[in-house]
């Protein structure tokens, strides 16, 4: 479905559009259920094998290299999962959970493993780290578990981190703790993030670039601030207009879409969004729009640029 090619962090989609994630920046993929954002991220991580297409990381095709090469490349790219309850093995201590990648990737040996694991825990705000090493996941709250998940991902010293809905299962008073932690780690360690999220306020807070996905395609790609201030694609507009704002004095402008998201098995002809679009034209049901430059955004829409 998509290709990844070129320099270390450069992505090329199947319909001829390229985008790069600049080093030490956050690229976000947003979209509703079934938009393909998680599948895309997991394929990049080679946790899912694609039917066709290529994923390149540092010029190497991830689907052609040997298992050994892949293993060593995994150090460079790590993932933080959504559910901190399901993604930590309940039968392992924190020392084992965070220490395992250290051993696997040869970052520490013997007694140094515990020391390194404790340092990683302190890096994610579990201080003093040594106090937490011999505990099991069930002894921690959701926010603390997510910190452990982040420490585990940081262990092999990655350059790219995929954050798959990192705060959506956390309580609201805990979310800002994790968001600020992630932002701090990015600056401190020079990390690059690929963030998968459905909560657009989280996306706006963390990202430099945003790709909006609808039914497996990127429909709009732009600099974060510009996308939120001046959305171009009708789907992006509808998405932004539907977020409740925690301020009773703010009145939102409503954009109503028709119907529901179609099944990805039976895609509409032409533009995938046309059956729900507030302003469809004849051409929209006939041909699929390419991503083109409208007001500095890459937008897949047949309409003429208007203000």
């Amino acid at each position, binding site marked *: 479905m998509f290709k990844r090619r070129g320099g270390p962090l450069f992505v090329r989609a199947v319909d001829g559009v390229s985008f790069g994630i600049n080093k030490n920046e956050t690229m976000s993929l947003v979209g*509703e*259920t079934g938009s393909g954002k998680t599948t895309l991220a997991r394929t990049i991580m080679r946790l899912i094998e694609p039917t066709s297409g290529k994923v390149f990381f540092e010029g190497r095709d991830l689907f052609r290299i040997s298992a050994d090469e892949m293993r060593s490349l995994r150090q460079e790219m790590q993932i933080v999962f959504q559910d901190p309850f399901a993604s930590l093995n309940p039968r392992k201590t924190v020392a084992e959970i965070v220490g395992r990648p250290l051993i696997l990737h040869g970052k520490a040996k013997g007694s140094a493993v515990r020391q390194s694991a404790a340092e990683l825990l302190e890096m994610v705000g579990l201080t003093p780290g040594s106090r937490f090493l011999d505990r099991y996941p069930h002894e921690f709250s959701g926010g603390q578990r997510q910190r452990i998940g982040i420490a585990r991902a940081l262990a092999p010293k990655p350059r790219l981190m995929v954050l798959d809905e990192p705060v959506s299962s956390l309580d609201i*008073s805990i979310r800002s703790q994790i968001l600020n932690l992630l932002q701090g780690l990015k600056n401190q360690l020079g990390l690059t993030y690929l963030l998968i999220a*459905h909560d657009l306020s989280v996306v706006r807070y963390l990202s430099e670039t945003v790709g909006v996905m609808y039914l497996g395609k990127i429909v709009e790609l732009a600099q974060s601030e510009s996308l939120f201030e001046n959305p171009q694609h009708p789907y992006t507009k509808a998405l932004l*207009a539907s977020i*409740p*704002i925690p*301020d009773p004095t703010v009145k939102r402008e409503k954009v109503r879409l028709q119907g529901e998201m179609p099944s990805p098995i039976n895609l509409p002809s032409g533009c995938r969004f046309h059956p729900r679009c507030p302003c469809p034209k004849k051409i929209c049901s006939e041909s699929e729009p390419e991503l083109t430059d409208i007001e500095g955004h890459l937008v897949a829409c047949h309409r003429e640029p208007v203000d």
Partner: protein
Amino acid sequence: MNNSSLLSIQDLRTHFFTSTGVVKAVDGVSFDLQRGQTLGVVGESGSGKSVTALTVMRLIPSPPGRIVSGQIEFAGLGNLTEKTESEMRQIRGKHISMSFQDPMTYLNPVLRIGDQIAEAVLLHGQATKREAYDRAVETMRLVGIPSPEVRAKDYPHQLSGGMRQRILLAIAVSCNPQLLIADEPTTALDVIVQDEILELLRDLKKKLGMTVMVITHDLGVVAELTDQVVVMYAGKVMEEGKTLDVFKNPINPYTEGLLRSIPRVDWGKKQLNVIEGIIPDVVDPPPGCRFHPRCPYVARLCQEAEPAIVELKPGHRTACHFAAKIYG
């Protein structure tokens, strides 16, 4: 309880007696719900917001749960805590209805949707089966299901998440209740669908003249939908007032911290305030004020004595020893 109150909760305590200790899920909660109002009960996990709603419905599993003290006065029906189960069966659905967060769990997967809604109608009215079914189809139309005659024959798995939430609301409003309690009505939904459900709730309230109580953790939903808000934390009410007042001028450190710590889509990269610490365990809550370990204004008194909830400004109540000093 004054004349315009539909529901008045006083010093409600619902505790769960488990092997690991007594879970004081709701621990001295009081608030009034005025007729025709939309009230939001907002809180995080363990705040007691859902248990409060379930207690009003008298749906607390017992054992281990028990209403330890308090009163739930419902206009014209008296104290709900004293009702028998058979009396409650007459009240649920007809006077007070509740819709739940996860539609897939609460819909019967082997019954057609039309029949599930008709079941609720049959239980309360003198309607025949035919009339009940017609009523079910009409209610589906009311909640915005396109071609309801056809969809009534569908099973729950044939519907999308948004449609299922609409069906739950249809069941809840099918007998014209005076009070609708909506527990996390938008939580599992995508943003666009979520917005449609909020619109539907507003619409239903207007058409049916209901009073609505929304249980949610989402401050955006509260700001959009409600007139009045109750902020809960670890089984206690921290702040209560008009939604506009609470959001514009919060008078409790928890509410204030919360409002400054959530990222907003209209804010960009504005630095977020952080509420340090973790959500307390309600089996062994902190002594004194339950928020004190996380409070930036904490003083010695906060660790020793529990603050009473007081009216600091007209119609605006807070449980904080130093509210008058900080916000006065």
